[in-house]
């Protein structure tokens, strides 16, 4: 189902970002952030292109991409569900909510559902502790949840 | 090398020309990369986009054989921008004006035309080399193996002299000697025109000195170089050839001519394996390998270093020095040596540069000649203060194309060289499976547009012909070579040297133009 993200158009946008950042020191991180936005992930072909144009060894780029949780190697699901497991949320039992979402979407924590529709992540604290426990679906945020609310939310997507 | 390997790391700018350093001298290649990590600027001039080209600030993919034009072009820019070292020129050099006048007409635009690179890159390269406080030139056979090899080296020394990059740490003119003891062989006078320490055979005092040392009559008539001897053999002037530790049937140009020459003479070959050359021999003598004998090698930075025996030689093989000594005794020269240290001490007596070096002193760390006395620490950097000759001599040299170029039926330029895995004629490296897995067979690198024009696919067998012969080899379609240039590594029998020209030699040192050969390429039916 993964639609072909490695289009020429995307690589052109990547090229522009690299040209913009080439001179700057520590350019790799901003470029990787852009690449993650453009492609939805940073696969081998993209890392190779960045390595050639930015002059950073491929092994170093692979090390950086696999270090930070925001960068992914494979495309994620259409909807990325993030259940916050910050302490404030965890203490107000976010764990059962996470288990429920996993159960309903068929996506394991950190994985993507077989139909590629949902990716499920246990995210770090996103700073909305006033709404604990919190769940995000791409940009939308749902706060002050109980396990019962989960089916309603998942059904919406 | 005028300087030492360790200094490369502290250079501000490194100009690598005619050397695929990371493949031919890998550990020096690593030091160049360490220098770059510390911020050094790198200029690379080579017909192939070698691995180091990616790290270079300026990469000049020049046409083979056009190095003199490039050097003169860079000199032109350095003078034009006034970044030459005026005090150094005034105090330490001769004939600068003649040189300055010569390079006047080597404008970047004109040189760009000859070399096939952008004029702006020539300016950039010149600026980097000129403005650096410590700039080091590294070069190898890519500079010397031309019909005008010697003058090409002189064109590089002009650059070093005019910018004062001599006699200082991390500078200098540094030929990367290709083999483990080629420096030692030259030092020992295994050359037709000099005895040990480059003492000329035509100098009567030298002849007298050696005659006294060896109490024997000596000829002062300069002998033949290998190409001349090969020529002589094929014409019957040379009746006997004694070849030890070499495999001309693969390493020398024009293999067919070499075969003809060797077959006509009484041939003695002394080696560790039955090489292609040994198969033609009348007498083959089994020798010990480097791990089976004590002695010394001299590396590219003039450092005399110990070689030690680890295992016994197989069967009846003997160390080469034992064979040579025993043969001399059979021929009536009674001198006996019990070990190589005795030979070394004899060398020290007749070779000023080696006088201060002893086995004991180099037990831990080798010493770099010249080392005149036993308390002398050896010489890291040559030409300190003033050039050894008293004054650096500028040489106004012109770029002259090789006769191999622009030939009707052989329109493409073949250049030869090494790859990382094999060494010379694969006699030693070819015995390790991993090496053959990585680089077991011959190939020809062809530029994609040329391959397309000739409808040649990657991996296809093609026919390559030159006036000397033809070979069939596997095509490797790659951007590494330019449009009209092809590359074949010379390691493999029935390979590059079937095609190369053994006649067009450098007038001074008789080195063949192995880097430029006119060839034609045809798709096999």
């Amino acid at each position: 189902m993964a639609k072909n993200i490695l289009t020429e158009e995307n690589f052109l946008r990547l090229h522009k970002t690299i040209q913009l950042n080439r001179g700057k020191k520590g350019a790799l991180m901003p470029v990787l952030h852009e690449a993650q936005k453009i492609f939805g992930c940073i696969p081998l072909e993209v890392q190779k292109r960045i390595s050639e144009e930015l002059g950073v060894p491929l092994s170093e780029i692979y090390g950086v991409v696999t270090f930070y949780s925001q960068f992914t190697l494979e495309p994620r699901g259409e909807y990325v569900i993030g259940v916050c497991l910050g302490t404030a949320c965890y203490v107000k039992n976010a764990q059962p909510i996470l288990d429920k979402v996993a159960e309903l979407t068929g996506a394991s924590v950190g994985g993507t559902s077989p139909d590629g529709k949902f990716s499920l992540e246990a995210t770090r604290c996103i700073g909305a502790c006033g709404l604990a426990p919190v769940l995000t679906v791409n940009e939308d945020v749902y706060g002050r949840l109980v396990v019962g609310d989960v089916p309603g939310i998942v059904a919406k997507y | 090398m005028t300087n030492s390997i360790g200094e490369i790391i502290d250079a501000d700018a490194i100009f690598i020309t005619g050397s695929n350093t990371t493949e031919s001298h890998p550990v020096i290649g690593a030091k160049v990369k360490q220098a770059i990590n510390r911020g050094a600027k790198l200029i690379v001039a080579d017909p192939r986009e070698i691995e180091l080209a990616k790290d270079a600030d300026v990469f000049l993919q020049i046409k083979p054989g056009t190095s003199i034009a490039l050097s003169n072009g860079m000199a032109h820019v350095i003078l034009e921008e006034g970044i030459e070292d005026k005090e150094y020129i005034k105090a330490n050099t001769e004939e600068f004006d003649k040189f300055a006048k010569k390079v006047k007409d080597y404008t970047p635009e004109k040189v760009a035309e000859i070399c096939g690179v952008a004029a702006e890159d020539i300016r950039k390269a010149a600026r980097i080399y000129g403005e650096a406080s410590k700039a080091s030139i590294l070069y190898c056979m890519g500079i010397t193996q031309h019909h005008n090899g010697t003058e090409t080296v002189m064109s590089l020394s002009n650059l070093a002299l005019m910018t004062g990059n001599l006699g200082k740490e991390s500078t200098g003119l540094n030929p990367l000697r290709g083999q483990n003891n080629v420096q030692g062989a030259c030092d020992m006078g295994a050359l037709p025109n000099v005895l040990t320490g480059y003492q000329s055979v035509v100098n009567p005092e030298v002849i007298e000195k050696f005659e006294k040392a060896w109490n024997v009559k000596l000829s002062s008539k300069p002998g033949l170089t290998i190409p001349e001897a090969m020529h002589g053999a094929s014409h019957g002037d040379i009746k006997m050839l004694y070849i030890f530790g070499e495999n001309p049937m693969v390493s020398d140009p024009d293999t067919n001519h070499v075969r003809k020459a060797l077959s006509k003479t009484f041939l003695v070959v002394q080696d560790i394996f039955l090489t292609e050359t040994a198969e033609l021999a009348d007498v083959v003598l089994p020798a010990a390998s480097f791990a089976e004998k004590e002695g010394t090698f001299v590396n590219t930075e003039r450092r005399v270093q110990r070689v030690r025996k680890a295992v016994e030689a197989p069967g009846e093989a003997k160390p080469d020095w034992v064979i040579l000594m025993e043969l001399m005794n059979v021929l009536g020269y009674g001198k006996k040596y019990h070990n190589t240290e005795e030979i070394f001490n004899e060398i020290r007596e007749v070779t000023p540069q080696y006088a201060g070096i002893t086995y004991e002193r180099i037990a831990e760390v080798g010493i770099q000649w010249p080392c005149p006395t036993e308390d002398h620490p050896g010489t890291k950097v040559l030409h300190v203060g003033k050039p050894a000759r008293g004054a650096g001599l500028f040489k106004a040299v012109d770029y002259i194309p090789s006769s191999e170029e622009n030939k009707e039926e052989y329109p493409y330029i073949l250049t030869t060289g090494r790859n990382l895995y094999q060494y010379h004629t694969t006699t030693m490296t070819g015995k390790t499976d991993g090496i053959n897995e990585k680089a077991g067979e011959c190939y020809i690198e062809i530029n994609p547009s040329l391959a397309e024009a000739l409808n040649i696919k990657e991996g296809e067998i093609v026919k390559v012909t030159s006036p000397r012969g033809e070979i069939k080899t596997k095509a490797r379609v790659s951007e590494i070579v330019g449009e009209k240039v092809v590359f074949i590594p010379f390691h493999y029998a029935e390979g590059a040297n079937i095609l190369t020209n053994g006649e067009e030699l450098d007038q001074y040192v008789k080195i063949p133009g192995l880097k430029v050969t006119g060839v034609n390429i045809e798709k096999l039916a």
Partner: protein
Amino acid sequence: MITLKINGLEVEAEEGSTILEAATKVGVKIPTFCHDPRLVPHGSCRICVVELEGGRNLPTACTTPVAEGMNIQTESKEVVETRREILDLILANHPLDCLTCEKSGRCTLQDLCFKYDVKETTHRGAKKCHPIDESNPFYYSDQNKCILCGKCVYVCSQLQGTNAIGFAERGFPTHIATPFNEGLAHSTCVSCGNCVSVCPVGALMPKSKEKFRYWETRTVRTTCSYCGVGCQMDLVVKENSVVGIDPVMAVPNDGLLCVKGKFAFNFINHPNRLKKPLVRKEGKLVEATWEEAYQVIADQINEIKTKDGADAIAGFSSARALTEENYLMQKLMRAVVGTNNVDHCARL
């Protein structure tokens, strides 16, 4: 100069030098895994921790610069306990197969567990299980034995400049990998083996032809017989065969080698080595005695000298042979044969 105390011993040390350097200078041994004098100290393994009087934690000797009046204990109770715990933790994620592991006898982990009496791990839990990377013809990479000291990565990037391998992932799953775990053969690895030479355990090992134990071998220091760099190397010898080669930390190569120097030594004990003199009889090369061979050569030389003169003979010496041998070759041609027709392949 800084004065400090190590195990009660007064020590003088350069400003800016580390505790490890100061200790080594006075012969005090401090265990290390991830230290290499050529690399920027990165303090990953922590086995070199020492006790600093008044210090909050145990500083690592390899990274901490000396300071005036320091009072250091390198084998105090707390230090030994901490090292035992670190070894315990390493063993918890390391296969205990010293009986068949080729590194046995030369493995720093094995030596330190012996020194600090760490028989086995007291932890049980998840263990690494990566496939062994056999794709390189000269050496293999077994990530399950890796203790993540990082030296192979830093040698490959800081010294060799090839950047073939790097750290992948984070935390407990961290491992050394080629990009996308595609294997060494698909990486930029040039098989120089410099990583193999610095690996303190059996994670990176040459594919030796012959099985051998290090205690059965002796080493002979020599100079490499391939290119003109003149790398210093130790031949590892078992009975009469060379079974391995290690770089030497000395001028001019400072512990580096290349693929040929490190791995292409098979020619030495190769069966096809020439073992007896051969003389051509009726067009075929047949074995002969030395005396016979010498006589044939001597006769030829004398015959040609009288008929055509010494200059009809030419000798090619060898840039691969010893300095002393080149001297004798040109002496043979000049003093004995009587011609200057002697040259060698400086031109190739």
